């Protein structure tokens, strides 16, 4: 028997009204994510995968269908489930410590300080505690945003193309950092990306979305253990499978 799903998306559709015409962005999407699972939602830009993530995160209300987390309907955003944007989401008026401690207003001074120090260390920002975001590189800002999210000890992380604005080398480093952090802090992760390699490198399962209105074309299990060998035949096989599923030719 399978354990109950942590996140359960049931027959979710989304329509936006623009200039009088209704545009369907999501069409009857159903998806179960297990506790502790890392799921990538893969699709072309503008396909509606971010909309799906915003619905699961409680920032948008689905036109029809429902989202359950721990068996409870999602009514709105909740500190138990934190949304991570591209690195632009950090608060520029706060220092590194101020950002990491942002969500810890309910804690006492001592515990707050300890938590901040722990997560600053976990993401590798020691020595930058009093720096402001504009003094940090893109990759460091992204680490900061992840630390701010982890500090409130959420069960679920939603990451919306978090590494999209980084250069390709920093992006590779950040992927292995994310996997390292995930080993330390077991979280359920929903990760939206349009990068096929990224999804094969990170996910337990890849959900391939079609173009608008987005539906789930296929769910692919990435049956490889970490660390993953990026030149292994199985890696290339899975990547090609996803390439084909997205509808791209194998040659450039």
């Amino acid at each position: 028997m399978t354990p109950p799903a942590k996140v359960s998306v049931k027959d979710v559709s989304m329509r936006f009204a623009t200039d009088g015409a209704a545009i369907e962005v999501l069409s009857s999407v159903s998806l179960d994510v297990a506790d502790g699972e890392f799921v990538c939602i893969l699709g072309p830009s503008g396909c509606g995968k971010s909309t799906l993530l915003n619905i699961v995160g409680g920032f948008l209300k689905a036109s029809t269908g429902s989202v359950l987390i721990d068996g409870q309907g999602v009514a709105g955003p909740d500190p138990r489930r934190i949304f991570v944007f591209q690195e632009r989401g950090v608060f520029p008026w706060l220092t590194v410590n101020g950002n990491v401690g942002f969500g810890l207003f309910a804690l006492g001074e001592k515990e707050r300080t300890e938590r901040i120090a722990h997560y600053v260390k976990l993401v590798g920002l020691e020595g930058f505690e009093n720096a402001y975001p504009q003094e940090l590189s893109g990759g460091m800002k992204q680490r900061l945003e992840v630390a701010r999210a982890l500090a409130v000890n959420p069960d679920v992380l939603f990451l919306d193309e978090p590494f999209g604005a980084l250069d390709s080398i920093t992006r590779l480093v950040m992927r292995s950092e994310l996997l390292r952090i995930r080993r330390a802090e077991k979280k359920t992760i929903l990760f939206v990306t349009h990068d096929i390699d990224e999804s094969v490198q990170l996910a337990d399962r890849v959900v391939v979305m079609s173009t608008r209105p987005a539906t789930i074309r296929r769910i692919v299990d990435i049956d490889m253990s970490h660390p993953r060998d990026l030149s292994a035949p199985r890696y290339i096989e899975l990547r090609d499978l996803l390439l084909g599923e997205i509808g791209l030719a194998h040659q450039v």
Partner: protein
Amino acid sequence: MPTRSDVERVLLPLGTAALVVALWALAVRLSHTTVFPSPLRVLAGLQELAGRGVLWRYVGDSLRRVAAGYFLALVLGIPAGLALGWHRSLASAFNPVIQMARPISPLAWMPLAILWFGVSEAAPGFLIFLGAFFPIVVAAMNGVRSVPSMYLQAGRNFGLSTPRLLARVVFPAALPQILVGLRIALGIAWIVVVAAEMIAVDSGLGYLIIDSRNAGKRYDLVVAGMLLIGVIGLVLDTLARRLERLRTVRWGFQGEAA
């Protein structure tokens, strides 16, 4: 050995100012004017004012009036602007009134100010308040409106109530724009006080100018008053710009030349 930036920051402006003064002196000498004062006569006029004990009193009176009107504009304008920026319906309701009142020069209110407050301290204070209030309100309103939705979403995600969200996300995110509004408003307040003092009161730098002209056509004192106004305005603007370098707002001023 002065560096390039020393030259650009200090020597260049000082040199230009000296050139302007030299041209002024030359023009007075060549034209043989007996009405327009030379720089030296203006300097003597300043000394005379200091000797009579009115120089610092007038400067103090003008600054005090600006401080009072500006402080009131700040205290009322920032909350009003935040509220207008946050509540769309409030903005829709008030925006036409604000946009209509804004282009009316505060000086146009002078007759009403004297009608309501008489020839008193309150009349110039009211005009300064009017001049400073609208730029502050509009800056705070636009500042709130241009807060990236991502910041609001993040704030909500961490469970902030609306008052907390306003205090911890909206206000700091809008602060750079608010500071720009405060600086513009301070410049306007300093312009308005001089004009208001020409009519409504009998002290201050504006009064100095109009009184020096009316009582004996002392143009050396008129120009001395003008120079004082310019120098103090420069100092006020420099102080206001200092605020923009604070670490919590500096992010909002990047890419701007100092």
